[in-house]
């Protein structure tokens, strides 16, 4: 969707960032005894505004967690660190993408963090199947958009 922006291979930064994500997941387990699944945490935080089915009543730390997520890029900018980002300007496409991501993670009980990071670390067979499914679906979607429809 939109022009392809080349990106550099950044193994060390990516590994370092991944280690921070892992540390956070361990903090959430050690402190609150929960999986650090962002779709679930966002749903819990959202239920403050919009009541929802089957959401835990323990919302306080989830709202705070989302605020922490939001503060992260601002903290980076504050210390003068680079925040590189290219988001598609195809707003209709982004709306459809957002809807699918929200609906899919709610129905499938997790996303890249809950199934990907936490589920794989727990050696959960459900999460392994979910990860393979969403990776294949995502790669197939990119292939179709870029190489079949896009002609790139």
């Amino acid at each position, binding site marked *: 969707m939109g022009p*392809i922006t080349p990106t550099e291979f950044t193994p060390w930064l990516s590994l370092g960032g991944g280690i921070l994500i892992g540390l956070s997941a361990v903090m959430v387990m050690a402190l609150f005894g929960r999986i650090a699944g962002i779709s679930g945490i966002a749903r819990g935080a959202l239920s403050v505004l919009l009541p929802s089915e089957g959401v835990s009543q323990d919302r306080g730390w989830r709202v705070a967690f989302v605020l922490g997520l939001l503060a992260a*890029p601002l903290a980076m900018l504050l210390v003068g660190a680079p925040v590189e980002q290219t988001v598609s300007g195809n707003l209709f496409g982004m709306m459809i993408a957002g809807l699918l991501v929200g609906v899919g993670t709610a129905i499938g009980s997790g996303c890249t963090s809950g199934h990907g990071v936490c589920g794989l670390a727990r050696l959960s067979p459900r999460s392994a199947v979910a990860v393979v499914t969403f990776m294949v679906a995502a790669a197939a979607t990119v292939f179709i958009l870029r190489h079949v429809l896009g002609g790139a």
Partner: protein
Amino acid sequence: MRSFLGFLSGLVFGLGLVISGMANPAKVLNFLDLAGAWDPSLAFVMAGAAGVTFIGYRLAWRQSAPVMSETFDVPTSTTLDRPLIAGAAIFGIGWGIGGFCPGPALTALPLLAPGTLVFVPAMLFGLWFGAYAKSLPILSPKGAN
């Protein structure tokens, strides 16, 4: 204290997303583009995150209870049902279109890119609607609850 620790956990997670490149949809889409401008960086994100979590969880579970809660609450289901597969496939398609999964989309919000400002409200509506749809009989796994 709960709120402060929740905030701190979210901040560390968000910094990880930004530093790793996971919060940059261009990088995510290039990772998913095996036939094109493939950027394997995100495999390192997953390896680092899952590796630390694998070890850290086992250390955390040595305690009798979490610091701020009474019990560890970890999913116990092992059934591979229709909602799991269908939901993951729908999520994957959306991820492949926009390059955002839920964490990076939220953490990218303060950067105010127009695409993000459209994506996040749609995702939040989708999360709410998906939870409702899951309670309908067509998606309820047989014999659950």
